[in-house]
């Protein structure tokens, strides 16, 4: 068990392609960190640099008190779980678990004890003498985890371990990984492109985009205060609605609608406004509202996603399935639920100082500027 410090690490491939650009993350002992981002954002490269499967072009990685830039993967005191499990197909489950220990000249009795313990923890005891091909996907995944556990490493590295499982199994394995990690208290670095996995597993998540860190934070902080339009659209399902707007004299203008911000406007001028689908509500009778032209509806069972436009800008609204739908809707949003981003850089714009988070939610006041 150890803390991991990733300090200004870069990966430069042949031809000056920079896959990871000066990334720094401080991982505390026992913390579960999830690296999340779209394909090609450098998250796997970063993980593989920590594992020692890729060389580190710049910067340093420290595990515990040891800089491990030039340390062999086997000596780094880490264990890795791969997406395709990478079990040795010709070895039994027992041998798969024991192989790493045998190579380290662990005494036979201790190997037996550790394998038995891991097998019990993962409930794979009945399969110890089977070959991997006689196991189902979920069982293979457990064996792959077992191979990591028996080593008792300082850190677990997970490279999209659940991507090859079907949706149902993914959910149950997700819970199991979380439980296991809490129980063992081993520092973990987990790579995924699935924002749901990232949200549910992470103590803190790191959102990567184009080799750079967009945001590091606890899942709910990232969800409620996304640092950029990229994070806003990546974290959360459905993605946050982003519409163009204009702030003039303390009020926000979206198309024909004017929304009073109550003296808490972040800037003057054009902004990108973020609205979570679940924050948009149907307006009550007599309430100020925006006209939402319904395009199509996706039924998810527990909720219903309504896609449409406000003033020609596409939005998605999450409504409860009981809500009656009849033609176009009148929607409204609480003012303190609005997110503002710079239209040029995509960075979050904080509200003015007068913003108090526990102030009573102020409902939308709007006038049609006609």
């Amino acid at each position, binding site marked *: 068990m150890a803390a991991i410090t990733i300090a200004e690490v870069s990966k430069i491939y042949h031809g000056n392609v920079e896959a990871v650009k000066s990334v720094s993350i401080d991982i505390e002992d026992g913390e579960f960190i999830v690296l999340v981002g779209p394909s090609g954002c450098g998250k796997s490269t970063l993980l593989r640099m920590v594992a020692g499967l890729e060389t580190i072009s710049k910067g340093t990685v420290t595990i515990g008190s040891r800089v491990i830039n030039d340390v062999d993967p*086997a000596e780094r005191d*880490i264990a*890795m779980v791969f997406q395709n499990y*990478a079990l040795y*197909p*010709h070895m039994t489950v027992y041998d798969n678990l024991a192989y790493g220990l045998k190579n380290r000249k662990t005494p036979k009795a201790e190997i037996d004890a550790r394998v038995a313990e891991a097998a019990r923890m993962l409930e794979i005891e009945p399969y110890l003498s089977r070959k991997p091909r006689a196991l189902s996907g979920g069982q293979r995944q457990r064996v792959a985890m077992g*191979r990591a556990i028996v080593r008792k490493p300082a850190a677990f590295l997970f490279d999209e371990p659940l991507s090859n499982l079907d949706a149902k199994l993914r959910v149950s394995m997700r819970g199991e990984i979380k439980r296991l990690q809490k129980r063992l208290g081993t520092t973990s670095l987990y790579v995924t492109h699935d924002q749901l996995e990232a949200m549910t597993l992470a103590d803190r998540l790191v959102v990567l985009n184009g080799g750079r860190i967009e945001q590091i934070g606890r899942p709910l902080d990232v969800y409620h205060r996304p640092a950029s339009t990229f994070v806003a659209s990546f974290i959360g399902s459905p993605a946050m609605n982003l519409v163009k707007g204009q702030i003039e004299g303390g009020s926000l203008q979206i198309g024909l609608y004017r929304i009073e911000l109550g003296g808490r406007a972040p800037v003057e001028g054009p902004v990108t406004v973020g609205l979570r689908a679940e924050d948009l509500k149907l307006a009550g009778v007599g309430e100020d509202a925006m006209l939402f032209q319904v395009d199509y509806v996706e039924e998810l069972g527990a909720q219903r996603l309504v896609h449409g436009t406000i003033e020609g800008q596409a939005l998605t609204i999450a409504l409860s399935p009981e809500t009656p739908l009849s033609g176009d809707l009148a929607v409204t949003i609480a003012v303190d639920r609005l997110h503002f981003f710079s239209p040029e850089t995509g960075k979050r714009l904080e509200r003015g100082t007068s913003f108090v988070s526990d102030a009573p939610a102020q409902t939308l006041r709007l006038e049609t500027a006609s």
Partner: protein
Amino acid sequence: MYRTKIFDHVILLFGVFIMVAPVVVAFMTSTHEAADIHRNGLSLTWGGHFVETYQTVLTREGGFTGKITGFNMMLNSMILGLGFAVGKIVLSMLAAYALVYFRFPLATFFFWVIFTTLLLPLEVRILPSYEVMNTLKLTNTYTGLIVPLLASATGTFYFRQFFKSVPDELLEAARIDGAGPFKFFIDVLVPLSRTMMAAIFIIMFVYGWNQYLWPTLMTTDEGFFTLVRGIKQILLVWVGSNIPDYNEAFALAILAMLPPVMIVVIFQRWFIKGLTESDK
């Protein structure tokens, strides 16, 4: 479901007939006496001299120097076939391992150099090869018989393609598990390649067993004669009024067929397993 009809069996039987009939004829003829064969040609009936002929062939010390028996020749063929097959597998696996897993400059170039040697089979380079072996004083040795034939572009190519299909994660997992290059090769790649090895073993053993030209050139000492050469030797005695021992030639041919057939029968199960069961 498709039900086999009589016509299907007729086709199959025809195939079997084409394949097996010559072998049956050879076997039946070998049980006759040489003079009968000379007079009547090939025969399909049992000649009744099975035991004598095969005993003579296996144990009589023949040749010009009278040192070599059929059994010795069989042994020589076996040494050649096994040495050839095992040597080729070991060598081409190591070459393929280097080509696939070690990043050295011009790896692809070297692979293609190895590959182009397919265009230069033994027959093309037989004189220079002989010259080299002669200079090294390796004529009339098993080393001289086997070693020059070991380098195999075919085997290297097969194993290279196979190693390339082994997922990279396996290597990475092994590295994290503390396995060095040698351990990874022995503990992971070799067991994974078992079926490939069996397949190549069959092909190479039969190829080595049937070698004729190279052993003829390399060995003048009859103690190194192989079965295939022995057959030829028996028919070489057509001097004056001697009748060649046709029966013995046929018997040797039958004997020469047995080991490759057995190898195929034994390894066939592995071979098919390798084709049907994905082990990766």
